[in-house]
């Protein structure tokens, strides 16, 4: 039986409405109501078997559903066109998802640990800052170069990472993250501890930092342009990761993660695939960092600490390790909620941490655990 398309569409519509509500919520009770509603919906979905139906319908009608998803996000940015802050948060969520996608390939698919996510994000950001300040390179290329720099500098770590496993590999990436931050702080050419200004994104003569004037009365937020940029990057990264996952490359990644010895025995080049996963992942993280730096207009070492790396890792784990789709709710929770809890000031991280623990208690495999590979009819293409 072919699964109907409507469960996935309903799920998409409901979650879009929820996200939009959360982005626009000003009052504390509204935020709490939305969070509770989302929690209840999550529980119901698990209990009544909805999530299974949604997954099957999404898998069967993958193209329609992704098309509708993109259309809904575009619609959402349009609704928010005059809300600067909500758009900034939306862009931050989208770019965090891109960084999370990079970590998903590393942690979730090939099993390469990376506790220096924020450092690679920072490499992309600083590369964008330097290239946009010092060269006339077109800005789309600057963002790509940010990703390339992250992948390139990451290759320094390849040798030690291939020689170590588990905790030791984790330690190497942690050390790299700390090294990166210290290097920035003592390096005057890169602004030292005070950081660097980054010029805004310019595409074909249109400066993204200018508000979009519609007529004399209405002005659309300049973040609308950044939202478009972030959406393009996020969609492209998502498609890339999903395609990789479904392809023979993804199979090789999985084999390397599950059992290196067995994989090697079957002729899978373990080292090569680890390097590939690590580099592709870092490229995506650097890409996100470059775009983020151009959007916020400022980079400084304190934004790229070990703590920030842990937050990125926690997004990947909270979403369900290895499931690209799980990043969306996880990034929303980790990026948006602390912001929406500003009202409780210094206690907000306390409440936020409690919430994350509760989520993992209820769903130990993350919000949306990675499903089994399913090559049955319908999902192909």
């Amino acid at each position: 039986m072919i699964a109907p398309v409507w469960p996935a569409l309903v799920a998409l519509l409901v979650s879009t409405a929820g996200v939009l509500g959360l982005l626009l919520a000003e009052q504390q009770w509204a935020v709490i109501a939305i969070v509770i509603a989302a929690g209840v919906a999550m529980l119901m979905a698990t209990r009544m078997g909805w999530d299974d139906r949604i997954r099957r319908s999404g898998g069967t009608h993958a193209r329609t559903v992704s098309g509708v998803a993109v259309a809904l996000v575009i619609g959402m940015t349009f609704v928010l066109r005059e809300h600067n802050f909500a758009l900034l948060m939306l862009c931050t969520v989208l770019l965090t998802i891109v960084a999370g996608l990079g970590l998903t390939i590393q942690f979730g698919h090939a099993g390469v640990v990376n506790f220096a996510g924020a450092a690679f994000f920072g490499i992309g950001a600083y590369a964008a800052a330097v290239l946009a300040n010092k060269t006339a390179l077109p800005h789309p290329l600057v963002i790509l170069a940010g990703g390339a720099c992250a992948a390139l500098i990451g290759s320094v770590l390849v040798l030690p990472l291939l020689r170590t496993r588990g905790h030791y590999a984790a330690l190497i990436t942690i050390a790299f993250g700390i090294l990166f931050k210290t290097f920035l702080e003592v390096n005057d050419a890169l602004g030292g501890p005070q950081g660097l200004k980054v010029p805004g994104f310019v595409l074909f003569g249109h400066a993204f930092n200018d508000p979009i004037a519609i007529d004399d009365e209405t002005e659309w937020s300049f973040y609308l342009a950044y939202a478009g940029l972030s959406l393009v990057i996020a969609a492209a990264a998502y498609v890339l990761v999903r395609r990789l996952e479904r392809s023979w490359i993804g199979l090789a990644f999985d084999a390397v993660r599950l059992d290196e010895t067995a994989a090697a025995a079957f002729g899978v080049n373990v080292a090569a695939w680890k390097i590939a996963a690590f580099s592709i992942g870092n490229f995506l993280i650097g890409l996100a960092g470059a775009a983020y730096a151009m959007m916020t207009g400022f980079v400084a070492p304190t934004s790229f600490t070990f703590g920030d790396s842990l937050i990125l890792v926690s997004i990947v784990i909270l979403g369900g390790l290895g499931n690209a789709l799980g990043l969306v709710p996880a990034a929303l929770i980790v990026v948006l909620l602390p912001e929406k809890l500003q009202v409780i000031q210094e206690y907000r991280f306390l409440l936020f941490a409690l919430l994350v623990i509760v989520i993992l208690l209820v769903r130990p495999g993350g919000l949306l655990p990675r499903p089994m590979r399913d090559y049955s009819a319908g999902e192909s293409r």
Partner: protein
Amino acid sequence: MKSASLSVALIIALAGLPVQAKDTVRIAFIGPLTGGVSANGLGGRNSADLAVRLRNADAKTPYTYELVVLDDECKPNVGVQVATKAAADNGIVAGVTHYCSTVAMAAVEVYRKFGLPVVVWGAVLPDITYASDYKEVHRVNGTMINQNEAAARFMTGLKFKRWAVIHDTTDYGKGHNKYFSEDLAKSGGQILGTFGVTADQQDFSAELTKIKELKPEVIYFAGLTPIGVRIRSQMDKLGVKAVFQGTSGIVSDAFIEGLGPLAEGVVAFREGAPAEKLPGGRVFLDAYTKQKYPDDPEAYGPFAFAATTLVMDAIDKVGPDRKKVRAELNRTRDYDSIVGKITFDDHRQNAVPLITKFVVQDGKWLVWEDSDYASGKRALVKK
């Protein structure tokens, strides 16, 4: 009849209402409430909150104020985020913002873009006000520039003429060296040699031997306590006889503990003053204690209080309109506050910020004016 008298009573009651109901005006406070420097952020937050409470308790003021408190975590990316939140919200008229310099540097662009007038209450980097010319950005606390200007003027006033400079190669040390050297040249002092050292250097005999040959009267040290302690004790071992002059980085108990009697007669300068030494400090501290805040106001609390009061006075005067408030703040001149007079220069930097001179006497940092050195009982240079 009954209904008529009732309606009359109603009309009277309604007419009376507008007098009591004041419009609520929202102003933002931004500082680090979580993370490593949260003590300073919380102290600033409480002080700003205190200013708002005192204002709201006063029945004569035209508006009721609401303080919107946002946490910047001392991270520039979060700073840009919360600055956008405050600045993009048209209901917020002005802001009292930032303790961390990097955050302020990132956020001033946002205030500029959205036209939100802000008063910086704690960040000290000169560039925040001087690197750009944004009419939105004001600052009540002093900068490195002010500290060194005061230091140079004071020390040349004591008839010292020849300096040697040792600075660490961080932003802090380099910045201080730059501004002190400029100001000293203006005040007529002479620098015989400048030595950059790394922040974790252990041995300074090379630098100090050179300095000994130069025979300076004063060694100016720009850096933090740990290497300050090392340099001062190695000066003694090598027999370098000069007054040791430091920056805000050595005004700490650890400096005296590390040196013991050798610390005697060391001078240093710091922005601000102990709260009880401020013009309105006692009143501020009493009011602060009365509110039973769980944290101390810390060094910059009084500045947050003064900045908040300044912003509310401007709004009281011209109404809750960003452009008018900006113009009013720009015009601030000889404004009385608990940190002394506030006058903004052409970059909206408070031109008469408070710098306190400290000297070590009998194992304690004393304010210069209270010390035996000022009264002439002791001398920095032993005859």
